[in-house]
């Protein structure tokens, strides 16, 4: 009787790129719905425009590079980039801003570097940073979070597609800086965190609406962890580094530095920790490397949020650590089993 003789590995991971990307998209749904609920239909408009642009520019680039279009389009990676970027953009940005940011992400940050698997920087974050640097005014105006959205569907479409409103006076009433922005301005005016946090935009521990959005992204992320789509090291490292430093500074001077929970549940913290920093292409791939990479993002985010020129430092932190990944991976290669250290 012949034995079936196969070589190791005997347990194989059955996941494929489209499968992983589909799970990531599924896990984004609860958080995205919360965004839609608080920031209005603009979120949906952003997602539609970004997805269409991403698929179109991916198709054009794949054609130019003589790659099979169908195979690469159906791996959903362009769609994931588009949706992450769309969720990071304010829900009031004009349509052309979304188009520029998304096409930049796909064409320059992804395809010109060689496509999926070769891009050193997270495409979604490059798209976001490009938009933030080039159009700071549009990128710092967020709709005021309120259940059902501050603007009706018609007004949102008018605002995003034509740049006008049926009544121009509403715009100032429905948009404002983010809570993190307000804290930064408030501190500059010598007010304490306690005073600033009594404002209408603040909820239990962080910004109203933002708390729930972050909580649901956290849940989606935990589902990804459970499904083994992502590893635990990066999210744990990002969140614990951010928590630890904001806690230390908060203990040192609670009037000047926000509470650690504010940092964890504000801005894009959870989206970054579970969905953006864990991008398998641009993140570190070794055990210790992932921990260092994640901690780097957490610390840089804290530094940029407190002393940087931009309100939320996540995108910059991710890109800076992307740059460090080759070095981190080089120094954290695990020792091959049976080999001794050279000393």
């Amino acid at each position, binding site marked *: 009787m012949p034995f079936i003789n196969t070589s190791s590995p005997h347990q194989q991971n059955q996941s494929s790129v489209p499968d992983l990307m589909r799970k990531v998209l599924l896990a984004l749904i609860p958080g995205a719905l919360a965004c839609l609920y608080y920031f209005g239909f603009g979120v949906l408009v952003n997602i539609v425009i970004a997805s269409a642009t991403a698929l179109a520019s991916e198709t054009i680039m794949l054609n130019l590079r003589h790659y099979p279009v169908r195979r690469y389009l159906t791996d959903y990676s362009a769609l994931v980039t588009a949706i992450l970027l769309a969720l990071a953009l304010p829900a009031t940005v004009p349509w052309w801003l979304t188009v*520029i940011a998304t096409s930049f992400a796909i064409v*320059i940050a992804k395809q010109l570097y060689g496509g999926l698997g070769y891009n050193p920087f997270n495409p979604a974050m490059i798209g976001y940073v*490009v938009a933030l*640097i*080039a*159009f*700071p005014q549009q990128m710092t105006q967020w709709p005021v979070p309120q259940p059902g959205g501050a603007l009706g569907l018609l007004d949102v479409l008018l605002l995003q597609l034509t740049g006008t409103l049926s009544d121009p006076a509403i715009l100032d009433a429905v948009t404002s800086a983010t809570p993190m922005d307000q804290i930064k301005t408030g501190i500059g005016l010598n007010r304490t965190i306690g005073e600033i946090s009594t404002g209408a935009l603040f909820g239990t521990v962080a910004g109203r609406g933002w708390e729930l959005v972050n909580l649901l992204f956290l849940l989606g992320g935990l589902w990804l962890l459970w499904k083994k789509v992502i590893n635990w090291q990066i999210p744990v490292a990002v969140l614990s580094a951010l928590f630890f430093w904001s806690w230390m500074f908060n203990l040192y001077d609670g009037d000047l530095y926000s509470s650690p929970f504010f940092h964890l549940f504000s801005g894009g913290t959870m989206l970054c920790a579970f969905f953006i920093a864990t991008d398998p292409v641009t993140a570190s791939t070794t055990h210790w490397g992932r921990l260092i990479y994640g901690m780097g993002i957490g610390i840089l985010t804290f530094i940029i949020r407190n002393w940087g020129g931009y309100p939320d430092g996540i995108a910059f932190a991710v890109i800076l650590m992307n740059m460090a990944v080759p070095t981190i991976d080089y120094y954290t290669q695990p020792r091959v089993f049976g080999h001794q250290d050279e000393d």
Partner: protein
Amino acid sequence: MSNGFNKIIRDGLWDNNPGLVQLLGLCPLLAVTGTLINGLGLGIATTLVMVASNLTVSLIRNLVRSEVRIAVFVLIIASFVTAVELAMQAYFYDLYKVLGIFIPLIVTNCSIIGRAEAYASKNTPLNAAVDGLFMGLGFTGVLVVLGAMRELVGMGTILAQAHIMFGEAARNITLELSATHEGFLLAILPPGAFIGLGLIIAAKNIIDRRMTAREALTTTQTATSQA
């Protein structure tokens, strides 16, 4: 003789362009090309220095011992840069202020000392001067194209601030794309310079590849027709 000059000219402007092929002198190339006029100003200053330094280096090439040649080259280049700097300060004060530190920094432009070492120290004065002129013009060309690209995308204008170079009469030659153009700020910032230069180099490579393909085609056609 004319064939020799043709090759020098072609090398400087295209085949061995300092900005696109040698990739030398990238620091000023990337830093001052925010507008077309800035690029043109620095390009002309660099060209002047390059012609003068190439000519001088070639004239003294048999007098300088090879052990000290680099120091001598630097001294020569530094003198000409100082002369150009003082001249600009006297006649183009506004441009001088805009270009700032990048005029004295022409001394450190690798493409100038590169030409002195690689070409002028081994060739006759006339050839060296022509080489300096066309290398300089090639460099200026890249500065102007990159400056125009960045200015057009970043501010929606071409030839903004032309008066600081061509005098008050040129104040109105600025072309504005449209009055409502907000401008893509990124193009003016450092990333815009890197991306713009990358795109120009890519365009040059495409043109080169097409030309090689066409030449190969004509060669085979002639070969078949002769056969």
